[in-house]
């Protein structure tokens, strides 16, 4: 197949604007999957993705399409995740493409992530095909959205394709536009091999499997390949394309997208962004790689059963194979025993990893409150990174602390400008600017501490704007802040896993809110439980859970023994969801409770 019959493209959109539905329809219209095989969110393989209606892992698929010009084309679609936590995956997908379908909801218009994604696509010089989706819905106003796209993004409105991914209306036009407008891949078909790894995952039978985009040259099954970053050499054991199931091929040539297996046991040897070349005829230079993603949020993950520590380590090792952005190292807590400090791209990433560990590896886990990475300057002049409140130095050794800030862009109808400004002020935000995209839609930019974004910012943003606001953010740097460590004590003992870092001005409020919340979620025990919050030695809030006075089955006779036994079994099960700290049983959710104390 020559290069001019290949098109490589992505779909980019704000979350919920219909990306996965359009992907489903493209698979169907091109006959890549049959009606019988069709199910919603076809490319989202994980249960979690389907349950949450989101895409987490990107996923390439090959579509065969006979265009109106009578020729056969190969269209390589690379589906992308939509959540801001995974924006790095979007950039990886885009690097393997020449074009992007930009999908905008016909009733919502442009949102914060629409912009962020468009800028990423423009940076990579991709051809952008504008699409207005969901035109079949009652609230749709395709013409208004087209004008908005022209005004804000500079996409000619007459070139924007109105579609309904749900019904299939306009989807043929999209396919034709891909063929006619997306440039065919350029590349030296006979040059030395350069293939970009844009994702990889671990398969227990074949080892690491890499998704690759061949930029120049050709790769053949059996070829000895070399990873350009490490120089390690492997034999290619399988090559193939996904259409939509894995289909083996003999060769992959310049411009093509497919997968490669080479009996690689460790996914870290197939680093995303690395270049594969042939051992016998290596390329001179690697392709431009990706920036390595750094975790933004850390938390401790502890097995509820102490002897599950090794199983947790194995599970993390395996998960890491599919998720290069996951970071972890062993740590221990006085309260919780042995566990791992884990780093994530964001809270959604954290939640997904935790759920996958629990479901796919049958572990029962306790997660401690998430923390960002602080830069702490000590009085002896040294500086250290701290992402675990437990390691916070005592006040007398502290010179200054810096915390990470993000530049947050929020797009809202103009009547909510006041609400957003108020929210950002509460969250210690610094106003940057405000821009009217249209007469009704405003883009507000603030600098905000990342830690504030973690704590329920998005929920507050949605609720104060009746769901209209959209958010995108990127790390902007570190700034000095007046931060203190807040400790929580249960019956006089500090529970290290409950400590948190907070701004001094919020400390009293947070201490009160957190102790009250803990009072509500810690069940009555045989003894009174005193909950205190302190900064250093100073207690600033106190609550108590009174001792349990009654826990009894008053009546237990012949007719209801079975039911009463079930109640006791349930009670015993409930104890398994508790962590024993000293004599106190603490529900495992307590440790995450700092996250949403403000909702109370």
């Amino acid at each position, binding site marked *: 197949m020559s290069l001019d019959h290949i098109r490589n493209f992505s779909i980019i959109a704000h979350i919920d604007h219909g990306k996965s539905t359009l992907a489903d329809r493209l698979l169907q219209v091109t006959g890549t999957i049959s009606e019988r095989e069709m199910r919603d969110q076809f490319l989202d393989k994980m249960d979690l993705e389907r349950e949450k209606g989101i895409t987490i892992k990107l996923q390439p698929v090959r579509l065969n399409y006979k265009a109106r010009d009578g020729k056969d084309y190969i269209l390589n679609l690379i589906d992308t995740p939509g959540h801001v936590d995974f924006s790095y995956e979007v950039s990886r997908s885009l690097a393997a493409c020449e074009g992007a379908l930009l999908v905008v909801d016909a009733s919502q218009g442009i949102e914060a992530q629409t912009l962020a994604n468009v800028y990423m696509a423009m940076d990579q010089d991709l051809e952008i095909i504008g699409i207005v989706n969901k035109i079949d819905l009652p609230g749709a106003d395709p013409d208004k959205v087209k004008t908005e796209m022209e005004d804000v993004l500079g996409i000619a409105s007459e070139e924007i394709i109105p579609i309904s991914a749900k019904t299939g209306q306009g989807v043929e036009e999209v396919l034709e536009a891909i063929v006619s407008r997306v440039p065919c891949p350029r590349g030296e078909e006979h040059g030395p091999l350069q293939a970009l790894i844009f994702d990889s995952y671990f398969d227990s039978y074949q080892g690491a499997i890499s998704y690759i985009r061949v930029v120049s040259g050709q790769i053949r099954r059996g070829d000895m390949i070399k990873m350009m970053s490490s120089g390690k050499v492997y034999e290619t054991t399988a090559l193939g394309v996904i259409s939509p199931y894995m289909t083996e091929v003999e060769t992959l040539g310049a411009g093509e997208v497919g997968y490669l297996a080479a009996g690689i046991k460790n996914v870290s040897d197939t680093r995303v962004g690395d270049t594969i070349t042939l051992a016998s005829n290596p390329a001179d230079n690697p392709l431009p790689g990706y920036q390595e993603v750094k975790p933004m949020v850390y938390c401790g993950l502890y097995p509820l059963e102490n002897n599950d520590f090794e199983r947790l380590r194995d599970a993390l090792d395996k998960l890491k194979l599919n998720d290069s952005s996951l970071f972890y190292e062993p740590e221990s807590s006085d309260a919780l025993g042995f566990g791992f400090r884990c780093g994530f791209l964001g809270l959604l990433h954290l939640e997904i990893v935790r759920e996958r560990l629990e479901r796919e590896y049958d572990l029962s886990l306790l997660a401690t409150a998430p923390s960002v990475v602080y830069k702490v300057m000590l009085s002896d002049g040294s500086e250290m990174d701290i992402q675990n409140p437990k390691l916070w130095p005592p006040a007398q050794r502290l010179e200054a602390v810096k915390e990470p800030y993000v530049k947050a862009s929020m797009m809202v109808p103009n009547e909510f400008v006041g609400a957003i400004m108020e929210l950002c002020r509460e969250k210690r935000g610094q106003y940057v600017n405000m821009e009217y995209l249209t007469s009704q839609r405003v883009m507000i930019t603030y600098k905000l501490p990342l830690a504030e974004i973690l704590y329920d910012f998005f929920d507050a943003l949605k609720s104060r704007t009746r769901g209209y606001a959209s958010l995108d953010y990127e790390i902007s740097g570190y700034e000095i802040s007046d931060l203190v460590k807040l400790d929580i004590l249960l019956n006089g003992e500090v529970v290290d896993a409950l400590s948190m870092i907070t701004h001094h001005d919020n400390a009293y409020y947070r201490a009160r809110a957190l102790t009250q919340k803990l009072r509500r979620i810690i069940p009555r025990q045989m003894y009174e439980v005193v909950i205190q919050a302190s900064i250093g030695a100073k207690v600033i809030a106190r609550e108590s859970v*009174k001792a349990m*006075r*009654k826990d*009894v*089955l*008053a009546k*237990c006779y012949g*007719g209801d023994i079975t039911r009463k036994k079930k109640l006791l*079994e349930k009670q*015993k099960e409930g104890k398994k969801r508790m962590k024993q700290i000293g004599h106190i049983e603490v529900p495992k959710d307590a440790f995450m409770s700092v996250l949403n104390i403000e909702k109370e």
Partner: protein
Amino acid sequence: MEATWPQNSLGLYVHIPFCRRKCPYCDFYSVTFADQAQLQAYTERLCFEISACSEDYRGKPVDSIYFGGGTPSLLKPAQIGTVINTMASRFTLLKDLEITMEINPATVNRSSLEACKTAGINRVSLGLQSLQDKELRVLGRIHSAAAARKAITAADAAGFHNLSFDLIYGIPGQTITAWMQTLQEAVSFQPQHISIYLLQLESQVPMARAIARGELVLPAEEDIEAMYYQAIDYLHDKGIVQYEISNLALDGYLCRHNLRYWQFGEYLGFGAAAVSRLGGRRWMNAADVDAYMAGGPNRSEAAQIVLEDMKPRQQAQEAIIMGLRLTNGLNVEAFRRRFGISLLQEFRPVVERFTSSGLLELDHGWLRLTKAGLLVSNQVLCCFVE
């Protein structure tokens, strides 16, 4: 745990699932009483079920019969008599057997009680619940405190000398003082047995919903605790001694039928929703009067559901959970003989944990809940569940 019943004997339970009106705190199976014709048909069906019961247990010795409900006192004494006579024709009723009937004070008078006695009832459990009108109204009972007093006097006059009172504490609006007044007055009638029940509500019953809406307020846990222990101490002074979490009696008047449940004895139940246990199997008749009346596939037996098939280990666990409800507790050696399980070895961590925290005690070969452990016994019992 030495069994207190003759070897190989059975207890028989009869469920009368009819009530004049459903109480707002009750989650037992009952339907609103329709008419005498229905009760007559139900009695006939009961007798049919008893006569048709399996050859396996026919002729077995029986040392207790219990008419529970619902409201068994809705039955006419003659109907009670018919049921007892049918049992006598199928089982070997032991001399001195205990025959209890639960009685709603609003449904009896002296002559009906006398007739019950003639029919064979020799123990009466009066559902007084409270002797305060205000509390009875909150409970939605159909009787007043005056009616309760009248029923007690009538039972006494009818010649019942094994009288038990059911009383409830923890009623919305109830004070410790009011509770102690009820107890004091109850004792003045010189009953042989008293059951004190903490009001416990399943989340779906009407009273639980009223509490959730804030229309009714339960007493504080501290007050409930005080009500329980003050009641036990007070009754103890009057010679009415606690023998189970919620049951107290004069010496020699422990409820034989109920002891059987707590000592893991065997029993057969008749009537809609009645439960039976023999060996490891526990089963239940359909909890539906119409289905019960229609009978099983060949009408020979009631439609039944198997609730549990317990392995020996699970039987032993049930025996622990039930046996620890008794204030004597479990005799470690007797338990080992009966179930082949050494409590102190097999449940060592649980036993050690709770003896050290003061909820369990081990005393001359008996393992029992301490007094402090009684009202929080689920904390202990659930740890014996596997």
